[in-house]
């Protein structure tokens, strides 16, 4: 079972995502933005960072990378794709997920340990969590505020497409405290917080993030 992790120019948490895949028992594969080939991976992580400096809009330029064309088309066929932070921004910019991420309401970069509730445990990336499982993982971002128009928000909630919600103080002003969403099929998930930083007690605040990576192993085996 291979999990590919894309490196864009300016990706930062790519090594961490590969480590998390390995800790979960998968074989991590480094994918390169300019190479459209996915090298036979069974799932893809778009990692955190500031691709292209996030100078235009977070994720706006990466969306046009050659590897994204392949990922966009394979995602349509059911390939599990997890976008973390900058990866979530890329997924929204690619229109694989609705909405967009804008600057935090307090306009500062914020790094903290954040409680979340997993509200949808039927996706490829969350099946190892209980429904309404409360976890604490790292949130760190500058442009982490999830926004969408009211009908879209209503639809996301109505169809159970909200994967995770912030508990306690909303760290970035996301509408309706949304921390992560999925597509209807449940293979594409975007998540603002960073599960890959929470897979080892030594270096993370918890190991609550590991479930994302173990979930996808099962999803791939099952399919």
């Amino acid at each position: 079972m291979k999990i590919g992790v894309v490196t864009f120019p300016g990706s930062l948490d790519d090594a961490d995502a590969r480590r998390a895949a390995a800790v979960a028992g998968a074989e991590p594969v480094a994918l390169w933005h300019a190479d459209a080939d996915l090298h036979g991976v069974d799932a893809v992580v778009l990692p955190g960072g500031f691709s292209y400096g996030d100078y235009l809009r977070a994720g706006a330029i990466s969306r046009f990378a050659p590897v994204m064309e392949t990922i966009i088309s394979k995602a349509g066929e059911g390939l599990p794709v997890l976008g973390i932070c900058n990866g979530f921004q890329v997924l929204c910019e690619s229109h694989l997920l609705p909405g967009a991420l804008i600057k935090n309401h307090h306009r500062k970069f914020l790094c903290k340990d954040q409680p979340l509730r997993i509200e949808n445990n039927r996706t490829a990336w969350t099946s190892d969590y209980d429904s309404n499982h409360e976890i604490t993982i790292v949130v760190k971002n500058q442009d982490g505020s999830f926004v969408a128009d009211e009908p879209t928000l209503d639809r996301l909630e109505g169809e159970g497409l909200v994967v995770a919600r912030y508990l306690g103080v909303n760290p970035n002003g996301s509408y309706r405290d949304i921390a992560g969403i999925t597509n209807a099929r449940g293979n594409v998930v975007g998540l603002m917080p960073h599960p890959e930083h929470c897979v080892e007690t030594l270096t993370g605040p918890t190991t609550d993030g590991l479930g994302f990576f173990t979930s996808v192993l099962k999803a791939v085996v099952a399919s």
Partner: protein
Amino acid sequence: MSPEMSADTVSNAGNTPDVEQPWAELGLKPDEYQRIRDILDRRPTSCELAMYSVMWSEHCSYKSSKVHLRRFGEIPQETPAGKMLAGIGENAGVIDIGEGYAVTFKVESHNHPSYIEPYQGAATGVGGIVRDILAMGARPVAVMDPLRFGPLHADDTKRVLPGVVSGIGGYGNSLGLPNVGGEVVFDPTYLGNPLVNALCVGVMRHEDLHLANATGVGNRIILYGAKTGGDGIGGVSVLASETFAEGGPTKRPAVQVGDPFMEKLLIECTLELFAANVVEGIQDLGGAGLSCATSELASAGEGGMYVSLDKVPLRDASLAPEEILMSESQERMMAVVTPDNVEAFLKICAKWDVQADVIGEVTNTGRLQIDWHGERVVDVPPRTVAHEGPVYERPYERPAWQDELQADGAEKLPRATTGAELRDTLLTLVASPNLCDKSWVTDQYDRYVLGNSVLAQPEDSGMIRVDETSGLGVAVSTDCNGRFAKLDPYTGAKLALAESYRNVATTGARPAAVTDCLNFGSPEDPAVMWQFAEAIRGLVDGCIELGIPVTGGNVSFYNQTGETPILPTPVVGVLGVIDDVSRRTPIGFTAEMEGHQLYLLGETEEELSGSEWANVVHGHLGGRPPAVDLAAEQQLADILINASRDGLIDAAHDVSDGGVAQTLVESALRGGVGARVWAPDGLDPFLFLFAESAGRAVVAVPRTEEVRFTDMCTARRFPHVKIGVITGDSLDVQDQFEVSLTELRTAWTQTLPAALN
């Protein structure tokens, strides 16, 4: 486009010996200008004059500090961890930490730029130190930021502090470097002179060590990274304007703007170049840009160097050659590459979208020769530019006011005596700007990226895992109490060293090496120069006693407003090595530690001068700083390291600013569990809580290990006394007062947000 430019060539300079040159405007002294003429046996060209003037500036030549810095060479150059593989004189010091790994670390200042433009000044400060580390061949793995500002409530602090913090975060976060520590200190003397120091740590395999020298005749000189613009040219524009027929150059910005995305590409690209083994020598471009890189590389090599300025890619084509040489555009590096590796080199750069151009080669002329538009504009012996600049023996003298200052001790000031007064004092101190919670700052920094941050602020030191399999790691702390240094710069520097050393040992790592950033006022003031010399003397003596060398650092002078210099601020960074990071000791009292015994290690004396108590409660600075006993520090460190390795302690926190009270508050709030404590027999509760004697730490010992632990201290005859037990949700000082963690947390956390939001 710009008017026709004509250069002042070498032959022109030979033919026109009497041309007036603006050497004074460029900061050169008459004898320095004469010396340049003597070296060249003619007048310098305007390009040469620009190079000499900037390379002989205080910032680049260390002309006022050199005679003192040389004393660092008296310290034995071995570290307790392993050999020093590169030391002072290189871009950064490198030490062997075993298992084939080496680490490099260095702290630098970006004080003046950060005052003018806080965001960009701080951001480019991070960028600069990261390139220094990269230039050694290392992957940068962590940053730290010792910061000092004027009073928290001053208007200008509200301009400077948020800008500096977001600049450091904006740059460091974008590079994917965890920020694992630093300092935030307030004092009125920093109001017009904030201190923005930045430290970077890098890791490499031994074989990846690269040095900055240009050897091998025929090897190519490659400039790569960002294009060269008119950034940071400042005074040199005066000079450039003289070479324009008419019109003059466009405005040149004094402020450099950083592009962290470019730097991230530069890091990955450079590491791939090292891995591909296509780099002979390398140098970052920082202050003085190409002038510095070319002359330093050539000077450290054995031959000469030829460079064509026409090959330098420009962001602004109107730049005159003097300006190209001087530009401080960020995110650039220079490499020496054998001809057969050039293609591979350029290919790797192309992969990372990094522009790279061959701009010259290593020659056997023994001279640095630079052409522009086909004409020679520079022809100099490189050592005279880079390494043989002027050296000053500036006068220094203990100021007359020093005695009076030292006579005015804080020990005589009125103190809290009743439980209620002690409680008030505690809450006041906990909420004071220097002791309060700094997460308003540190929450803006990514401390998790790279996945190797074992400890980060507010722990005693940052700790980074180097090897995932063996658990080998390093810990780094930076410290300085400028008030102590003002009272006695010699002892103050030793205290800074002692505190940093202690912080590293408290986490379980063995201190191994030192870097320092010496922030002072004007070297032309004999009193400041005395403070500087004393601080160096303190560091040298201290390092010899502790057996750890200084591997590199930085000097920042002229931090003063009018006649008032900043507190002398010798920031000391200590790096330690730990065999297995899973044995690290954190500061927090956690629920699992309920019932653990608290011991205070070290002696508490009646030492209140320069303390936070004297500062906050009385606005007082006078007396003598706490005594420093480095032999005792070493013993304490041994105990902390052994106890961590043998599992005898579960938490430890050093005692420094704010005394034992602050230590206990921080440990309790960190882990969310309180303590019941008492003043040991014979010790006045006030001194127990607030004295700032050095050489102390509070440790949490599981009951099951208590005998082994106290036996160890007894065997070493090290003072240790039980002061309490971990329990409950308050800090209960027996027979005196109790305060809930909730109340403490509110007092501790509200200060910065209230002032800055």
